[in-house]
């Protein structure tokens, strides 16, 4: 029906718009900001969004399955802080890592269990578990806000690894993105996540193990958070637990939502995360170059996130007749 070649506006979805904005912003920044379009700065942009992007990958998988994981940042920071604390107090590396991995999996499984089997909304479960994880580790397991990486430990060495002058976290982000892409696109369970996110009841009725898969997603998200935390510690040589109270968590949701992963589930993929991460990375970098104070950056990010959610609400509107009761 589009014979005369008008652009098909209907096909212009959020991902496309955001991608266009990201390119425009990139072009504008390249033209107007000195030092933006240099190899070092471009690497810095990619590096700055790597950890955010990794966390957003985990979040994306959860959101596609119609959930959300607000405990991701708490798990990321606190698991690594505990790991480093264990190392600093002389626990052997293998044992310490086993403890931390077990703890992370336990929280992920608990999240998933409460969401899947106790039918508690994911938002509350993960809000509560995030608060608990932070409070428990901070008050019981570690002694100060920031925990340094022990001298000569592999985490420290990891931070120094470069390949073609590109830091290792970029490769980890790329690798993980590819893995998640393969998982979502080509594995049975990856496809099932879309079904479960689109219509959980129907998915369950056709025999998909919806509830065990939910548990799996939260466990996956927790493990991804641990990886992101290790990378953070690697590049900073310490982990600061105050990051839990920062806006990092909302940045993650921002990356996922702004890239076009609908919060109502069943839509989106790795490409959306990449687009969202690109936009946020360029934005943050540009703001830093212009020298906007951090507080104002938060304000701007919040405004953008609000805009993204409003657009999401308009593109995926909720209907009075079909909206789920108690779906908040």
């Amino acid at each position, binding site marked *: 029906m589009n014979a005369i070649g008008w652009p098909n506006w209907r096909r212009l979805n959020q991902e496309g718009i955001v991608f266009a904005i990201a390119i425009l912003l990139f072009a504008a920044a390249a033209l107007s900001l000195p030092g933006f379009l240099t190899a070092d700065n471009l690497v810095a942009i990619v590096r700055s969004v790597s950890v955010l992007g990794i966390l957003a990958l985990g979040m994306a998988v959860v959101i596609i399955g119609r959930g959300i994981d607000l405990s991701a940042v708490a798990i990321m920071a606190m698991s690594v802080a505990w790991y480093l604390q264990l190392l600093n107090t002389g626990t052997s590396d293998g044992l310490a890592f086993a403890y931390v991995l077990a703890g992370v999996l336990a929280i992920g499984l608990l999240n998933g269990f409460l969401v899947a089997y106790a039918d508690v909304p994911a938002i509350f479960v993960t809000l509560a578990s995030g608060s608990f994880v932070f409070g428990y580790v901070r008050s019981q397991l570690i002694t100060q*806000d920031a925990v340094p990486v022990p001298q000569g430990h592999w985490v420290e060495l990891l931070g120094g690894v470069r390949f073609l002058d590109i830091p290792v976290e970029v490769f980890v982000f790329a690798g993980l993105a590819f893995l998640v892409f393969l998982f979502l696109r080509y594995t049975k369970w990856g496809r099932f996540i879309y079904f479960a996110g689109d219509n959980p009841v129907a998915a369950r009725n056709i025999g998909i193990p919806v509830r065990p898969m939910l548990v799996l997603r939260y466990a996956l998200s927790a493990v991804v958070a641990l990886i992101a935390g290790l990378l953070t510690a690697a590049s900073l040589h310490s982990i600061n637990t105050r990051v839990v109270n920062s806006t990092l968590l909302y940045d993650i949701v921002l990356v996922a939502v702004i890239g076009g992963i609908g919060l109502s589930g069943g839509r989106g993929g790795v490409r959306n995360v990449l687009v969202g991460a690109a936009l946020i990375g360029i934005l943050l970098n540009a703001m830093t170059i212009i020298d906007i104070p951090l507080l104002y950056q938060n304000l701007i990010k919040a405004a953008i996130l609000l805009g993204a959610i409003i657009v999401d609400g308009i593109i995926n509107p909720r209907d009075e007749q079909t909206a789920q009761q108690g779906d908040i």
Partner: protein
Amino acid sequence: MTFRERLQAWRYNLVPDHLVGEILTKRWTDNAIPFLALVATLGVFGSIIPGFFKLTSLQESTRQLGEFSLVVIGMTVVMLGGGIDLSVGSIFALSCFSAVYVFFILEQSIWLALAAALATGLIFGAINGYLVGYLRLRAFLTTLVTFIFGRALFDILVSTYAADVQLSQASSDVLDFIGDGTFWGLSISVWLAVILAIVTHIALTRSRPGWHVLAVGGSRRSAHNAGIRVRRTVFMTYVFSGFCSSIGGFLIACRLSGAGPGTGLNLEIMALTAAVVGGVSLGGGRGSVVKGLMGAIIVLTMTNGLIRLGYGTGTNQMVLGILLAVAVTIDIRWLKNRHKVLNEVYVAPVYLKMGETQSAALGSGTPYELDNRLSAADHIGLGELEGPEDVILDRDDHLYCGTRHGEIVRFFAPDYVKSEVFAHIGGFPLGLAFDKQGNLISCVGAMGLYSVSPEREVKRLSAETSRSWTSIVDDARLRDPNDCDIAPDGRIYFTDSTKRYDAHDWALDSIENRATGRLLVYDPKDGSTKTLLDGYRYTNGVCMAHDGKSLFFAESWACRVHRYWLEGPKAGTAECVIRDMPGYPDNINRASDGNYWMAWLGMRTPSFDLSLRHPDMRKRMTRRLPQDEWLFPNINTGGVVKFNEKGGIVETLGDLSGSAHPMVTSMREHKGYLFVGGILNNRIGRYKISGADPNWTSPASYWGARP
């Protein structure tokens, strides 16, 4: 009786199992868990923190509690409307800053500062409300974002103006009083919280906007379809929340005379935890201001207590996280499973050993011997009627009966072919009687005692009796009014079969077999209803004796008929006149020969009699088997029994074919015919009684010849 059986009798007749179910039906059980948590929290922290209950300590902590409670009230209202407001902390902080800015930097009056704080809160709330209510965004994420936005704004403002505030010379007695003073021993913030709580409570429970909030929260879709302006209602809840938070912010501005980076920090998760711990349901519709306040006290006591006990950074978050997770889980599970639990425990059978009975089998030679005479009855309204429980005829020979559609149908004499709906009452009209003025009195199942005038005017006579002190279930309400009859002085005697089940659940009542049936009297002179007798197993038919000095009433599940004396030496007492019948008695009416007709709604079976001696088995049965497989009274065979004034059985009529009148719930003699009704039947039968007085009518028997 074996020892095992005696033990069972004791176990099931003395242990009041039924109270558990009755307590669970109460809405206030929702409050019990948070209340116990509140008592436990106060007890624990009161005992381990020295001086916790000292006046000065309480004044300081209640000041904070007042501010916090205000925020929680706002959160509660939003949650009742089905939303959530995570931006309360930001609104609180921004309002606090507005007040501080106007008072300390602009050096305006304290009232202007209050106005600024309120305006900030209302505007912020309106933004939330617009986004969530009108744009229908997801409440949680939207208010999360506005929370970050507000927080970022506040941080910028505080870092910009903090020094100016420090240097300001402004002071005010009013501000100091609001911040530090007390009024009748309580701080201003507590007074404000109490006043707002009372106003909000009244608004929620007794005003239209409040009901709209609860309706939208309870079922958004139904509220929308019922014409409630859902979006505006949701919008208003957020505005209200902003208003509450802004008052809290103003109070803290007065108390601290400034605003700092810590103002309102973590307030949203605390308020959310408080509301949920108090028992305000996520997703809306369930909860109250009182619950929110209980939660507020619990949460604040815990967090403050932990600080005073010297636990380090993070402990509060840990405890809040645990509290929130546990409370949300309990809330969700409780809501989901409450009715299941109720179904599980409500039926609490008792032990009863029925007496030996005489046989009713054909050819047994007993007076109860059921024959096949009723199968010869003509039918009236075959296929048109559903559930004529009782039938009655007026002085003009017209025939009336109730139907399960809540109507009273009239069939016209003489052939009873044409019919009309005489009156629509609703419920299920059961027992019928004509009073002296020709009003048709009816016991309407699930509704009460009603009167229909000859002009078809329906009037409610009674729907409740006095509440007894010891009953947990509300026994003032008439749950299953069954049959009525009228004394010569005009008082209406009627039965209410059970206090524990609705009329349609009569089978469950028979399985439980608990004696909760009552005989009541309605006095038309003053409109009062009194309970005369209580504690019978399903009181059913009532019939005034021919002399009007006593009445007969049937006790269905015990297969007995009692006589209750209105006059004479035994006035006010009941005696059993017929016991251990082979059938379950229903309505009783007068016969022309000075005897009485009694309907049998079903026949006793050895198996059900045996099950009555095994309450544990019946309990398991109702829990584990589908309803179709339950053992309950056999209602495939019934009959009509004639008995005399002394309780002797004269004769018994039956329908062994099982096709015309298997179950009989009522019969009425009129001019030599017997009109037969059945609650599950599709017709009224007309049976010619041999040898009956062809001129005798029931209205004439009660009220004399036509005046």
